[in-house]
């Protein structure tokens, strides 16, 4: 079961978890990245640390952890300078990047690991509007890959370097984030999407943007959205979901334990929406 929600700790994540971690201070980020990677090693995953700097500097970031220092020596952990991991430069190609991690995950499995775990400082990859857009699309695509593969990742972003609103856009594309993320999170499920958190005025622009970037899968003319983790959604949010389904010529299938969503659908007279429990 993948984790979803807001957290202030990075340990205890499964081998397919996807965590967004915004930070103000590099010392803090490196300490959390080390914890996340050590936790992956415990679960038998190969550990991979991606950040800005050369290989020697990156190894230095992790030196305070004896476990990681040993893992770096025996090859169960590796450091990769950001520039070489994300080959295509400042704007990633979402599909190429997912393919690269799928390949690395397969290699880890072939080498006897249970999968791959990555902690990455991706700040430099989201510094322009175009690169942010591409990276948000990549974040959902890799999230979809993770739903069926033993790949886990901590995507870290240095808040002071980013424009206002950037972290919110990134956090909304992860099932798990730390505090000061987004009011809701959109993530992949085996057969559609899940929404977690609260959707109100604060998400008026964020939700349509997240839906656009997710390019959600439509299966047998159905867009399946698991809303069981949604504490609140207003009619604007519901209409954004409805618009998204309609733009894909799909029926919106909403899963919720509460009757409130079905009542809202009924009052608004929305067609092509099916509410299930």
């Amino acid at each position, binding site marked *: 079961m993948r984790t979803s929600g807001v957290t202030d700790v990075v340990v205890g994540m499964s081998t397919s978890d996807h965590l967004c971690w915004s930070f103000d201070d590099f010392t803090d980020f490196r300490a959390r990245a080390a914890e996340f990677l050590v936790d992956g090693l415990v679960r038998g995953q190969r550990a991979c640390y991606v950040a800005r700097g050369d290989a020697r500097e990156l190894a230095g970031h992790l030196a305070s952890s004896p476990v990681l220092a040993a893992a770096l020596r025996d090859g169960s952990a590796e450091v990769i300078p950001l520039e070489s991991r994300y080959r295509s430069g400042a704007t990633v190609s979402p599909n190429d990047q997912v393919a690269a991690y799928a390949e690395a995950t397969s290699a880890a499995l072939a080498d006897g690991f249970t999968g791959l775990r990555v902690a990455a400082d991706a700040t430099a990859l989201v510094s322009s509007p175009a690169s942010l857009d591409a990276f948000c699309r990549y974040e959902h695509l890799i999230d979809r890959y993770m739903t069926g593969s033993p790949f886990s990742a901590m995507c870290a972003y240095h808040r002071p370097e980013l424009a206002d609103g950037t972290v919110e856009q990134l956090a909304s594309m992860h099932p798990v984030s730390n505090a000061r993320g987004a009011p809701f999170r959109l993530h992949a499920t085996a057969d559609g999407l899940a929404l977690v958190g*609260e959707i*109100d005025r*604060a998400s008026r622009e964020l939700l349509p943007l997240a839906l656009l970037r997710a390019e959600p899968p439509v299966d047998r003319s159905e867009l399946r959205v698991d809303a069981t983790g949604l504490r609140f959604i207003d*009619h604007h949010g519901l209409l954004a979901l409805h618009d998204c389904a309609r733009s894909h010529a799909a029926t919106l299938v909403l899963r919720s334990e509460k*009757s409130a969503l079905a009542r809202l659908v009924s*009052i608004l007279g929305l067609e092509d929406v099916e509410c299930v429990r």
Partner: protein
Amino acid sequence: MTAGFFHECALYDSEDTFLALAVPFVEDGLRAGHPTFVACAEDNTALLRGALGRDDAVTYLPAADQYARPADAIASYREICAKLVSAGATGIHVVGDVPHPGVGAPWDWWARYEAAVNRAYAEFPLHGLCPYDTRTTPDYVLADVASTHPNVAGQGTPNPHYGAPLSAPRPDVLEQAPPLVELVDPTPSAVRGAVLAAIAGVRLDEDSAHDAVYAASEIITNGLTHGVGPVRFRLWADAARVVVATTDHGTGPSDPLVGLMPTEATQTAGLGLWILHRTCNYVSMGRGDDGFTVRVSVGA
């Protein structure tokens, strides 16, 4: 009868004066071959049935259903009228008892209904008669009735009071106590959290509890989006009912249809307030001494 809504009130103070105004109205409709409806309270329905005799041409609608909520009444009448017109009707007659405090119902949203229907039904060849019993109807309601009906039954001339401003909405009885929650310029998320905590001890079913949270979230969102700050949120509750209110320093929407009809032109204020008008027990909107207040009551 020409196309367009002919909206008139009938003021009566006895059974005889009620019948003297309502019976000719119904007979006019029947004589013209128009679909004719009576949506009156039980006592007035019984009087009309007795006076009209067995007449299958009149359709009786229980007022308790037809006038449960003004937004529902507008949706229902518009649907009835649209069907009849598309089936060829050139005129429609309706006698309807609009509820008010004299019969135990809160008034403000019905005052806005009486104002709004002049536009909401304008496209239909509808002749509507709204009887009010002056023995039970409060004076401020009668003043609003005069402001909202272009015509008064029994008077040959147009109503000179038509178009005057509506009376200010009355506070809810629960507002006599200090509010249980009071927040200034809160986020909608903070309001939802405060409402959830405050209604934990109130006897509300799951849907009603959600309605209270949704209403609170919607009215604070509305105030923050369209109002003039600071926006104040307050909540009162007793054992089985909760009242939430937001007050801002603006003038509120000028369009009387806001909340009563789903305004397709705007995806902003109109739709959210309309949802509350269709789910909650009572919604008042209007200007008072301290600004523009939207108040919503949920529960019994």
